[in-house]
């Protein structure tokens, strides 16, 4: 049967036709994804220089092996050392992780009941509801973040409303703080959490809950013992989909955060565009990547397992 298959051949070596199919995306990824990473690493080991491009290369690929080894001993770890001596960067890393973690937990707490409510709706309504819930993801990220400025500002809509209603008598003062950044992340990344959660809940066999009810379990008990454990994979996937990009987020801290909101994406951006310190920015990118290697690997694992389960 396999011999008739137009695209698949058995065995581990791809056929020439398979190679042809894979060649273009593979080459593209090597040139535009893998090679750039090698470059970031290289430049992070270079010295900062006042020129264009603003770094003095230490490694040159045209060197022969002996001079390469010689040069390797001269590699500059200055940028990395600078990072760890620079309290701005250390504080940025810590505060990025803390802000992203808080936002991820809040997103999960908000998204879970929402996903559950959609998954428990009538089968006819479900696709429409989940479609409506993730539709904002298609609209501009920048605009959605911008929309919150008008709401959260001291003279903005929320404070205005709450003062008029009489709940508070002074503006909330949350704009340009870390709280505003957390709100922005929760709002912007909600669809990323919602979709894997919904998929994990909706896939469950309804008979399991009926059996639990027949055996005398309360709905709450059945939820804790059946629905929640069975959706664990959705919880992990959704949390990683929010946490990983949130750690490196630039737009949200820049627009909603204050001048004292330190997040690594923003610090890196400023070092790159404002201070024009490319080696430090590259070293910062490498450290950020190392920071995210753990979560990224877990995410890849979940993805590959999912994929295997489907095929």
């Amino acid at each position, binding site marked *: 049967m396999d011999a008739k*298959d*137009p*695209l*698949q051949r058995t065995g*581990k*070596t791809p056929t020439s036709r*398979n190679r042809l199919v*894979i060649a273009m*995306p*593979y080459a*593209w*990824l090597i040139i*535009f*994804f893998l*090679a*750039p990473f090698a470059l*970031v690493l290289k430049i992070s080991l270079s010295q900062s220089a006042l020129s264009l*491009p603003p770094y003095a290369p230490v490694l040159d690929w045209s060197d022969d092996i002996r001079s390469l080894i010689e040069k390797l001993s001269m590699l500059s770890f200055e940028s990395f050392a600078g990072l760890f001596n620079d309290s701005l960067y250390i504080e940025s890393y810590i505060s990025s992780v803390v802000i992203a973690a808080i936002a991820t937990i809040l997103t999960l707490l*908000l998204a879970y009941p*929402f996903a559950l*409510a959609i998954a428990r*709706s009538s089968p006819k309504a479900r696709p429409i*509801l989940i479609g409506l*819930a993730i*539709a904002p993801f*298609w*609209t*501009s990220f*920048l*605009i*959605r973040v*911008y*929309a919150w*400025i*008008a709401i959260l500002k001291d003279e*903005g*809509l929320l404070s205005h409303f709450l003062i008029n209603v009489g709940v508070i008598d002074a503006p909330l003062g949350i704009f340009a703080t870390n709280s505003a950044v957390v709100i922005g992340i929760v*709002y912007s990344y909600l669809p990323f959490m919602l979709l894997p959660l919904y998929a994990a809940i909706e896939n469950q066999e309804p008979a399991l809950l009926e059996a639990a009810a027949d055996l005398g379990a309360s*709905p709450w008990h059945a939820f804790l013992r059946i629905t929640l454990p069975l959706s664990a994979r959705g919880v992990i996937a959704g949390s990683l*989909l929010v946490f*990983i990009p949130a750690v*490196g987020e*630039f*737009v949200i801290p*820049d*627009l909603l955060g204050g001048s004292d909101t330190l997040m690594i*994406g923003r610090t*890196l951006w400023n070092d*790159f565009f404002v201070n024009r310190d490319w080696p430090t*920015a*590259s070293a910062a*990118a490498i450290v*950020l*990547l190392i920071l995210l290697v753990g979560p*990224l690997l877990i*995410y*890849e694992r979940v993805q590959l397992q999912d*994929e295997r389960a*489907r*095929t």
Partner: protein
Amino acid sequence: MRAGANIVRAGMLTAGFAFLYGPIFLLVIFSFNASRLVTVWGGFSTRWYAALMQDAQLIASVRTSLLVAAVSALIATVNGTLAAIALVRFGRFRTRTIFAGAIYAPLVMPEVILGLSLLLLFVALGIERGFWTIVAAHATFTMCFVTVVVQSRLVGFDRALEEAAMDLGAGPARTFFAITLPLIRPAIVAGFLLAFTLSLDDLVIASFTAGPGSTTLPMRVYSQVRLGVSPEINAISTLMLAVVGLVLIAVAALARGRRN
């Protein structure tokens, strides 16, 4: 108990959708505000929309954005579809883990890292930054989204149809173009639209890879947003939302029509 559960569910849905759509609705409403103040309603007006039409720089950036989105989405769709076929159909080839890893990683990788690394590549190769560097960068980060969409369609695919075509004497290429491609077309179209909207929306990667003279719409909007909330930005935002909304409605209608 059943009725109680329904009330809780309805309440949860209402709260969830209010949170998701509230800010967007407020922004749209205030784009029609006659007053320049963003919190005070000064009557209905379309003056901010009229002002947009006079903004030549803005219109140029819309053109750039649309072109970048169209070209990069096209490249991403071809690459992403081929990658999906390789992942679903080729079994376990030797470097599959690296390949799959390189495909899934940009899905969650912080944009600043992708943008920075691509910029360094262009500088190292001595390529002048401009329209084509943004296209290449966007085609790279949107490709993985196409792959994921097409992949899920390929997995649920009835292989008997391909086998029947082969039995009837069609070659592998003919089978692919006559049977496989038409059957996965909805996913390819969806992948293209996803890549298109993602490209249209991107600020960070475009900022790193753009050169002078190739400013995209989000870059333009961002430089104005930094100065604060203004009715003009509300108006341009509303127009962008309307375009995306219309595309989504069209896609939903197409999907519905096909099913019936």
